[in-house]
């Protein structure tokens, strides 16, 4: 098989459990590897990092030559896929009630609640002989946190989970014929979910709670107010980004630790290593594996040119294992120094939920590690979600060594 079908092989569900040999093949094949479908894969650290910071590289899918014909000019998109200055404006407004400089203490203030939650969830696993780490822990934690943060009723989870699944699937990089259909259903789900969230926000107009939706609709300065459409797109993005990634971070983390019992012991003995372990997980098994981009000019990448308008796929999980950047990159080392991974992306789109994700992962692993010595994987590899971009186990069944 040749390198021009790498994207198809990466997105093939059969490779989901271990895409890393494919990423090695990609790095081997060159800094830029053109695919049969016309897209260009980049899998080396320095080149990905440069492209993430390049102002000529757009996150907006509408610039692509093979862009979705239904993505018309006027359509509202979340700032995740917009460019500056529109991206900057929306990101800044979305950030206002969430983080510094306007709301510096918000994320930090959630530490206590997150610790409580992880304690409760870990306690809920009790002495069960078998449980699913995803359904019983890794999913409920970030969902509860983001619901509380945004001001979304936790009971509505089944409702927005359906939308979220469709939207996330539509944002994947799967090539193929159903792409247009996936985009259509994704767009419908985004609209419905947006309407639901705007309705929730409207109920808080004039009666603000301590949540982001309240802050958005009660912003006193008209210049800093999101329009209804912007609020819908932004709230959908925050709700989805706020949990779809963290589930995978926690699940990948537990899986990785169970596969590396020596490192698990090390962390149990020295919890001071945990923050470093979370960074290493973000490098070693990043929840977001790929990002799509479009160059707005011919962009040179290590001697090759990616022509204007042709789709670019940045394989950031491959960059994280680039031996030209990280010594012994396939080794999981919680004490790794100089670990500037691409797990949160980079450049203007650098994940702004990163501080929250770090706190959640720290609390989750901190609460789980004491029990992980007593459990084993029911199957390795576990069943994975279909998604190649947001990669993670769909379930992670664990069994107690000595059944209760």
């Amino acid at each position, binding site marked *: 098989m040749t390198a021009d079908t790498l994207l198809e092989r990466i997105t093939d569900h059969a490779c989901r459990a271990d895409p890393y040999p494919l990423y090695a093949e990609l790095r081997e094949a060159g800094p830029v590897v053109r695919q049969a479908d016309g897209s260009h894969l980049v899998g080396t650290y320095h080149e990905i*990092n*440069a492209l993430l*910071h*390049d*102002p*000529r590289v*757009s996150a*907006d899918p509408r610039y692509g030559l093979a862009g979705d014909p239904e993505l018309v000019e006027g359509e509202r998109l979340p700032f995740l896929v917009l*460019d*500056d*200055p529109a991206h*900057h404006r929306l990101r800044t407004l979305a950030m206002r009630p969430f983080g510094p400089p306007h709301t510096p203490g918000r994320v930090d203030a959630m530490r206590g609640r997150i610790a409580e939650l992880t304690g409760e969830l870990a306690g809920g696993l009790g002495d069960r002989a078998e449980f699913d780490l995803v359904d019983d822990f890794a999913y409920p934690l970030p969902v509860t946190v983001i619901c509380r943060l945004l001001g979304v009723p936790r009971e509505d989870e089944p409702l927005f989970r359906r939308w979220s699944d469709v939207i996330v699937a539509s944002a994947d990089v799967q090539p193929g014929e159903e792409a247009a259909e996936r985009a259509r259903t994704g767009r419908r789900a985004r609209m419905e979910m947006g309407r639901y969230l705007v309705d929730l926000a409207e109920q808080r107009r004039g009666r603000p709670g301590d949540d982001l939706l309240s802050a958005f609709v009660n912003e006193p300065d008209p210049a800093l107010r999101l329009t209804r459409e912007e609020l819908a797109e932004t709230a959908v993005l925050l709700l989805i980004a706020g949990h779809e990634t963290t589930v995978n971070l926690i699940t990948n983390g537990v899986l990785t630790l169970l596969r590396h019992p020596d490192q698990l012991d090390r962390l149990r003995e020295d919890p001071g290593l945990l923050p470093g372990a979370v960074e290493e997980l973000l490098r070693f098994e990043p929840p977001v594996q790929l990002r799509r981009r479009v*160059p*707005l*000019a011919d*962009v040179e990448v290590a001697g090759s040119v990616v022509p*204007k308008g042709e789709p670019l796929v940045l394989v950031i999980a491959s960059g994280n294992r680039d031996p030209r950047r990280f010594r012994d990159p396939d080794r999981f080392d919680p004490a790794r120094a100089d670990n500037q991974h691409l797990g949160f992306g*980079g*450049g*203007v789109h*650098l994940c702004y939920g990163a501080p929250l994700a770090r706190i959640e992962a720290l609390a989750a692993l901190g609460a789980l590690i004491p029990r992980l010595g007593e459990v084993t994987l029911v199957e390795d590899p576990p069943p994975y979600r279909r998604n190649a971009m947001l990669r993670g186990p769909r379930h992670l069944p664990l069994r107690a060594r000595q059944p209760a």
Partner: protein
Amino acid sequence: MDGDPREGRVVVVGASLAGLRAAESLREQGFTGSLTVVGDEPHPPYDRPPLSKQVLLGQAAADSTGLPMRRNPDAEWRLGVPATGLDPLRKRVLLADGEWLAYDRLLIATGTRARPWPDREEAALDGVFTLRTCGDAGRLAERLAAGPRRVLVIGGGFTGSEIASACRERGLEVTVTERGPAPLVGALGGTLSKLAAGVQRAHGVDLRCGVTVTALRGDGRGRFVGADLSDGGRVDAEVCVVALGAVRNVEWLADAGLAAGPRGVACDAGCRAFDMYGIVTDDVFVAGDVSRFPHPLFEYQLLSLEHWGNAVAQAEVAAHNMISPGPLRRPHLSLPAFWSSQFGLNIKSVGVPTFSDQIVLAQGSLEERRLAVVYGYRGRVTAAVTVNMAKSLEYYQQLIETAAPFPPGPGAADRPLAAELTLPSDVPDPKRLSHGPTVALTGHLPDRRLTLVRHA
């Protein structure tokens, strides 16, 4: 040097950022010999950037900016005693208390001090300050907290502008005098200095450019009450901060025969000091603000920097080279970079903005006070400055490192129309500035190649 370079005696003169990082690096890289760090201040190493920001705002105590140690450098600390002489032949450093410290290798990291007001009597008036040490910052913060009716800041460089910003944030009236045409002009050139002037005025600073202070006035009982200006004007104020740039601490090297002068101690790319004949030494190293070193991206002109990042990077290279045999030594090549925060602006720079003949507004806009300005010299990108747009800097850093053509090519999503328009960089002659520019190229300014810059 004979024997294992990881053994023997190392003396580091200077107990601030560069000295501390060098000491840590020496140990990290396996130095097992004796290590002595000499510092003229009584405090353990502390960080200076907060002194003109958080400390003046009352958000942090002046003595709370101690530098965290990455590891215990296991050094003998000689604090509160300055070095006063160097005998390179007998390889020993003289301390103010009369003691001689013998070394096998020496690191000079004595940094700079604030340039004092030239008239001693006026400088001694109660209410007249400079800002360099944590002691300075503590005294000034205390005086600002007392709510003076007006503060006069002499010099609109980075330190002066940050002080003015802190004053305004505290609600204090402040006058800034700048001998050049606008604040920050020495570091950023003409265009961005106009933005800085506009921002300062919009924040209520009484900004006086193109003037100098000719005299500081007292009330007859030793208290500062105001200043006379070269344009015949007068400022009544209760506090005066002299922010006229820095003086390099090289006097103690006067008889050492090294290439030490007002712009620092010259060294090669490996941080080895040159002697006065331009011959490289092999046991005397230099790092931090006191050094001047050649940089290939800037035509090997000797750079004098007062940048936090340079102190760290150069200290690490110097430490590595002090304990490594010749072929394993590394050059200090890191790209100059600095940041400042003032008047709600986050200003960041890479490269050497004064090494330029043209600039272009590459991203953003002046009106939104969010922009990236790229500097070029003879058709090559040599620097970039962002205002409230720090995430864009890395891209330009890469352009500088790869000597990319200037102006940068089209295609940025938020590229303004002005990106088609290159302007003169308008880098002033340092002689026209009342404070030292943040970056000084030794020898000549690139757009005035035939003018030798001499120091008074």
